[in-house]
């Protein structure tokens, strides 16, 4: 039982390049989330999904797209990376929704955009 895994762990991009971050969970959770965390700050919700085939915007969705084609996977895409997107990205999943749930987090992806 691996829990929540993220690929890749590190990545350096040039401005304007694109990439996709992959999140996978093996706990059969319905809900999945993408957060970003800037140095010294708390996590900010980018996008989330309440089930396979569904996605919704969080606090800071601009510049990102997501897809949830399979229940166990949640992909975060950057179409044209900008230096402002330099951050650590965390994926999480949960069995229940909202404040009653326990979110399980992945180890994070450290992204640098030059």
């Amino acid at each position, binding site marked *: 039982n691996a829990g*929540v895994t993220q690929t890749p762990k590190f990545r350096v991009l040039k401005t304007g390049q694109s990439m996709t971050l992959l999140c996978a969970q093996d706990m059969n959770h319905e*809900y999945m*989330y993408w*957060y970003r965390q800037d140095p*010294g*700050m*708390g*996590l*900010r*919700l980018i996008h*989330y*999904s*309440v089930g396979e085939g569904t996605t*919704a915007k*969080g*606090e800071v969705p601009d510049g990102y797209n997501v897809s949830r084609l399979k229940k166990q996977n949640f992909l975060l895409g950057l179409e044209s990376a900008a230096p402002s997107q330099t951050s650590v990205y*965390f994926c*999480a999943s*949960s069995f*229940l*929704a*909202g*404040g*009653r*749930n*326990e*979110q*399980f*987090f*992945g*180890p*994070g992806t450290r992204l640098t955009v030059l």
Partner: protein
Amino acid sequence: LAKTTQPISMDSYEGQEVNITCSHNNIATNDYITWYQQFPSQGPRFIIQGYKTKVTNEVASLFIPADRKSSTLSLPRVSLSDTAVYYCLVGESSNTGKLIFGQGTTLQVKP
């Protein structure tokens, strides 16, 4: 979603009890209070959750007064390994799945 306010940082010594208080004046009837712990270079980890009164598990206790406008996370006899950032979150049991993380409280445990 209710906004939370907690101290930016706290210092303690090994073996002491640490209490971190979180203010959430606009908490709604359906909101639960949850605390997460985050070590450097790791994702947050769930510690404890409660709705009212007191909740205790093997890691911590959570005290919630009757008006629910604040809550206190209590860590008994902290060790150096408890040095981390602690987040207080308030969210409702809904279908949105949304939780809002604040800046958290950085706890530094000294020997």
